[in-house]
């Protein structure tokens, strides 16, 4: 599957909305720090498979929705999402050729870049959050990636 698929936009929206809700589900406190950034994982997955229905524009709107939903600095997640979505778009042809494990490593670095941007904006805007647990979703996100993407490409993004 090394060429672009074009999913209808409403399909992408139908997947992103539950992911937005999933990011706000109340969790036991031990699980909270391990909860992956589902929304970003989906943006990467759809951006990889169907770039024309999930590009930087979708990432921007989704990020803004997440900012509003969480009541933090407007534009923070939008910024980080757009950067990641652009990177995915730029390297999607190569990314698709990788084995799942190799892909997961790239996703790990994308998630790390995302978390680093948030960390940086937190610091600049004067709410630094230096607790080490904030980097855990990077690891768990990369760990679930092969299954998430495998499942999506088998059931949602078929040719």
């Amino acid at each position, binding site marked *: 599957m090394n060429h672009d698929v074009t999913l209808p936009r409403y399909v992408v929206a139908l997947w992103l909305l539950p992911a937005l809700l999933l990011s706000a589900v109340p969790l036991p406190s031990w699980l909270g720090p391990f909860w992956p950034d589902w929304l970003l994982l989906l943006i990467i997955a759809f951006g990889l498979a169907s770039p024309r229905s999930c590009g930087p524009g979708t990432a921007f709107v989704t990020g803004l929705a997440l900012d509003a*939903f969480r*009541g933090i*600095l407007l*534009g923070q997640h*939008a910024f980080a999402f757009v950067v990641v979505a652009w990177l995915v*778009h730029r390297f999607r042809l190569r990314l698709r050729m990788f084995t799942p494990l190799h892909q997961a490593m790239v996703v790990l670095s994308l998630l790390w870049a995302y978390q680093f941007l948030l960390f940086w904006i937190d610091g600049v*805007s004067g709410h630094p959050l230096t607790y080490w647990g904030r980097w855990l979703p990077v690891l768990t996100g990369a760990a679930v990636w092969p299954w998430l993407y495998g499942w999506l490409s088998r059931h949602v*993004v078929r040719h």
Partner: protein
Amino acid sequence: MRVSAPGALSGPARGGAVGLKAAVLVLAAVGLMVSDQRQNHLAWVRNVIVTAAWPLRWLVHSPVVAGEWLGATFATRERLLEDNRRLHDRQALLELRLLRFEALEAENQRLRAISQAVPTEATRSLMAEVLRVDLGPFRQRVIINQGSRHGVFLGQAVVDANGIIGQVRRVGSMSAEIILLSDPEHSIPVQVNRNGLRTLVAGTGQPDLLALPYLSRNADIRVGDLLLSSGLGGVFPAGTPVARVSEVRRDPTAPLAIIRATPLAALDRDREVLLIWFATPTVDIDTSVTPDSAPQNPAAGTKR
């Protein structure tokens, strides 16, 4: 969902357009962040968004509520009876305490009348339910189901049965966001109950841990000291319990002591919280008085 795959359209030519779009969006996001952070222009935008997000938040909250309702409906008879007995016992105990409390309150009023201070007691309170919505794993904030429609205002103090929880940080029409004591951005002026020492208690990001970062190494503070709100700043009513000191470390090489405290309120477990209105003991300082027009009544000057 089967879709067509027109791969021919994608090529290097599209990459530039997407890059441009991404650059514009990044700039837009930066603009948004700056205007949200520096100027408070986006307050009304936020209000609209918070109101729009209300149904979604309710959607996240509802399965938990449904689960609790099911649990309550199918509770066994024995458990209900046992609960009932326990609550009866507790009620008797509380009534006994209330009797004593009323006597103390009357005495307190008399003493306050003597010292001519205005009492700082809650004049009105409102129960609010905490929505089971997670606002990010490291942000110590919660959403409650009361908003400006119910009279909630920005900076309002929020308490539970054991002590202060936090203050209202953002108000929508149907809901409000509370910043908890434990949020890294929050600090509260307190007084040590034992000796009246004043300082600030700051949040750490962990719900069961607060820090007292501004006390010097030789400050008179011990493990077990009760910290009450001092009422400075006018956000919290004076004399409300806040936390108990749990750890005091005095490093001979550091100028400041490392002090930790445990909040008395159950910050991360509360389902219901109390919003309170209280009369702030304000003293009108007459700025028009110049040194040569000395006050006629010398007693008036000592009031402040």
